[in-house]
């Protein structure tokens, strides 16, 4: 019984050198110790690691002597017996011991072929230089990464939105929730369109088709054209190179000029919809009279190229029929309101009127010389003023009292001349009281009344001791009479109602083509714009001329206190009320709180 141990060593150039050694004994020791029969210079092997024995019956036995298992035929074990004829592959550390029966001359011996199968260190293993020294060992490849990222982007940002567009309903059943096509938005919608944020297809109806006006008109049913489309087209100024290019390119893609979105730009953030730029107006209006026949004057910029204001003035036409026409303020227009009223007299701080107002006192709402606010009060919108009423604004001084019955003062019926005549006749029929305090039916002037000391005395002695009713009536309707001094009186020639009063028509709005918001001008006094302190006649149109406005207001890009684009005063889609810009409360500073939004909406709102 013998072993033949063949130790295989590999040279640097890869050749194998086999050194055979015979052992004529039945047991071989295996270990790192140089005294071992099979010496394994392997640090993973203990000094005396194992023993290989030949056992009776043609068997070979491998036994771990240091208690560390070894691997026989791929199986970890501490003791393994196998047939010598079959042999086995034993692994100890990095070495392989192949045990097989001898053949030929060596028949009867057990051959043990010892070779190193593992490198002595990790660094000594075969390494591909280009690979191990690069980052490729620690990172996924650039190509797979590139594919993965590109597919990820296409999946999330292209496929998902497209699937959403083609599967989600666009009618009422559409859910108010995130839809993947929102990933394509170019910015948040304006406040008014906020509810459409989840519904791109409300406006972007067809793929690849720029937003059409029909999409806007689906909701905005009341908006009408600015003018006849043909006239609009004719009025357009030169587009310039940029505009012409845009129109040309747009035309190729079926985009018609003059779409809503040209002025109303969306996706500009969650703000009020941006005010339309001045150039959209001035492109036509800057020199429109050159292109079309129009009564409108050219206007390009409020600061330096805007015509004088032309308020609508009421005047008496043929036969006294009231007529209206727009007259430039430069022409100092006079209006026919049917009233006689000197502003200067009433706003004086020294005259009788002022004295009367002081005497009336705070209890009556006066107490100081008259101010504009004593008669003119804001209406609910804050934008303009309520019509002046005789009873509230004039009546405290200009009393129509003429009699007292018990504790009740009788007054002439304001606004009804026929009734006044009838009342006077009735008064005389009943036998008028006589008192010498007042003479005639003269108008009660401020001061007269106060100096008399008491109202009742005035009422009782309301100077009705003119001979008879007809004389008294004539006195009331004639110069110096209660009606005449404020109203236009004309004789009718009819003995029943011999006099009539021309109805008073106070202009509610002079600038029907533009918009002016008094609330936005609370920083000013009335008189800083309206020259009423020097106005002697009710016919004076006390509107400020444009130069006054231009002290603060300039064009859109002006370096003035209030740069003002056209949209501040004018509305493209005229609704007869405040322009969009005013309704949006934009560029109006602190005036916002004075606005009764609901009233404004009622007056000029609607979609």
């Amino acid at each position, binding site marked *: 019984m013998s072993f033949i141990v063949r130790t295989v060593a590999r040279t640097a150039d890869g050749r194998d050198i086999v050194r055979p050694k015979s052992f004529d004994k039945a047991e071989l020791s295996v270990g*790192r110790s*140089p005294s071992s029969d099979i010496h394994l*210079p392997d*640090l*993973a092997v*203990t*000094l005396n690691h194992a023993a290989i024995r030949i056992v009776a019956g043609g068997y070979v036995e491998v036994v771990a002597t*240091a208690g560390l298992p070894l691997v026989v035929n791929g199986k970890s074990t501490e003791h393994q017996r196998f047939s010598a004829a079959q042999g086995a592959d034993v692994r100890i550390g990095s070495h392989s011991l192949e045990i097989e029966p001898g053949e030929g001359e060596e028949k009867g011996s057990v051959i043990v072929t010892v070779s190193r199968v593992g490198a*002595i*260190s*990790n*660094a*000594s293993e075969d*390494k591909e*230089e280009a690979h*191990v*020294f*690069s*980052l490729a*060992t*620690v*990172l996924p490849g*650039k190509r797979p*990464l*590139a*594919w*993965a*990222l*590109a*597919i*990820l*982007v*296409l999946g999330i*940002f*292209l496929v998902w*939105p497209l699937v959403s567009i083609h599967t989600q309903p666009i009618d009422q059943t559409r859910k108010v929730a995130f839809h993947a*096509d*929102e*990933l*394509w*938005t*170019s*910015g*948040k919608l304006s406040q008014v369109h906020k509810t459409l944020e989840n519904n*791109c297809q409300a406006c*972007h109806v067809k*793929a*690849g*088709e*720029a*937003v059409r006006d029909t999409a806007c008109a689906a909701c905005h049913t009341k908006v009408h054209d600015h003018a006849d489309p043909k006239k609009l087209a004719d009025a357009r100024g030169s587009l310039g190179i*940029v505009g012409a*290019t*845009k129109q040309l390119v747009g035309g190729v893609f079926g985009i018609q000029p003059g779409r809503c979105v040209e002025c109303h*730009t969306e996706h*500009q953030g969650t703000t009020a919809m*941006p*005010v339309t*730029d001045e*150039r959209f107006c001035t492109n036509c209006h800057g020199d429109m009279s050159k292109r079309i026949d129009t009564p409108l004057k050219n206007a390009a910029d409020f600061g330096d190229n805007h015509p004088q204001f032309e308020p609508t003035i009421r005047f008496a036409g043929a036969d006294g029929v009231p007529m209206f026409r727009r007259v430039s303020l430069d022409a100092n227009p006079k209006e026919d309101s049917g009233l006689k009223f000197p502003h200067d007299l009433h706003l004086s701080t020294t005259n009788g009127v002022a004295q009367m107002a002081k005497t009336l006192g705070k209890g009556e709402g006066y107490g100081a010389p008259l101010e504009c606010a004593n008669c003119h009060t804001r209406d609910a919108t804050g934008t303009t003023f309520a019509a002046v009423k005789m009873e509230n604004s004039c009546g405290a001084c200009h009393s129509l009292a003429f009699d007292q019955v018990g504790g009740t003062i009788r007054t002439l019926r304001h606004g009804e001349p026929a009734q006044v005549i009838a009342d006077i006749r009735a008064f005389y029929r009943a036998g008028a009281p006589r008192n010498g305090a007042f003479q005639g039916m003269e108008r009660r002037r401020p001061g007269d009344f106060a100096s008399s000391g008491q109202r009742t005395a005035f009422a009782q002695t309301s100077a009705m001791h003119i001979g008879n009713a007809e004389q008294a009536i004539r006195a009331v309707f004639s110069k110096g009479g209660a009606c005449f001094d404020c109203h236009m009186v004309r004789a009718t020639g009819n003995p029943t109602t011999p006099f009539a009063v021309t109805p008073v028509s106070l202009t509610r709005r002079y600038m029907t083509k533009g918009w002016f918001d008094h609330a936005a001008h609370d920083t000013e006094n009335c008189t800083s714009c309206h020259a009423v302190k020097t106005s002697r006649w009710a016919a004076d149109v006390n509107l400020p001329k444009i130069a006054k406005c231009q002290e603060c207001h300039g064009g859109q890009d002006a370096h003035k206190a209030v740069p003002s684009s056209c949209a501040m005063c004018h509305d493209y889609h005229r609704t007869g009320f405040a322009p969009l810009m005013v309704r949006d409360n934009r560029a109006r500073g602190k005036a916002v709180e004075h606005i009764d939004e609901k009233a404004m909406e009622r007056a000029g709102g609607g979609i």
Partner: protein
Amino acid sequence: MATKSLRQATTGRERASEHEGFLRYQSYKWLKIALTLCGVAVLIYAFNDVQPKPNGGTIYGYTTGTIGILLILWLTMLGVRKRAITPGRWSLKSWTSAHVYLGLSLIVVATLHTGFDFGWNIHTLAYVLMMLVIGSGVFGIAAYASLPQALSANRGETTQIQMLDNLRTLDRQLNESAQPLDADGAAIVQMALADDPFGGGLVARLTGRYSKCGTRAALAAVRAHPSRGEAEADPLDHVEVLLERRRSSLSRIRKHLRLKALLEVWLYIHIPLTFALIAALFVHVVAVFYYW
């Protein structure tokens, strides 16, 4: 590589050749072209009064957008071009120079294309991806300009494979000198030998810090080994010397790896993000015209 000039003298005829990096190529020709492009773009932007605010949907926006996307596609072609090295006017160096400067000019052109109108959408995603690609490219330029010197200094006169062979030699010596050691001693040396010089993840590569370094652990264990007497000779003495050498050899390899990693890592952002960017740009264009 980029800016380092190198004088070479050939024998016989005196000839000095000036190395001209891609950054200085043709006296900064492409830098000038890129600056001109940016200047024109800024100038037009400044005088282009877009209401209510600038955006990509204006004529200027479409123009800069078209320039931008064509530039990006052309810049991407460097990957194709660099695989075919040719001399001459359209040499690879010229391409690289143009790639760098025109790529940088995109910062201006594309930013003006956006009109500073950003949001959480595909359009801004494309912009962000582009800026990341450009940013990684800038890192790459900085790395190419500064690291090769450090790499060369660290390597000395050796090659990569020589560095590795040096380590292998040390490993064989360690293996031999550890033969007489008992199982404990052998296990300590094994720790060092089992060290994978190329192990450790991306972080270790980039920082050069390998927290689980077997060699360092082995060295510490050898030094703390109870058998180490003061005066007597010990087989571990030699092992310690070898471990010390191994550590130094390993640290040079690791510094080399770190510098190489810094030279390479930006490409792992630059290239994959470029493809993500092209995908995003495709969606950007589709989205813009789908929802016109």
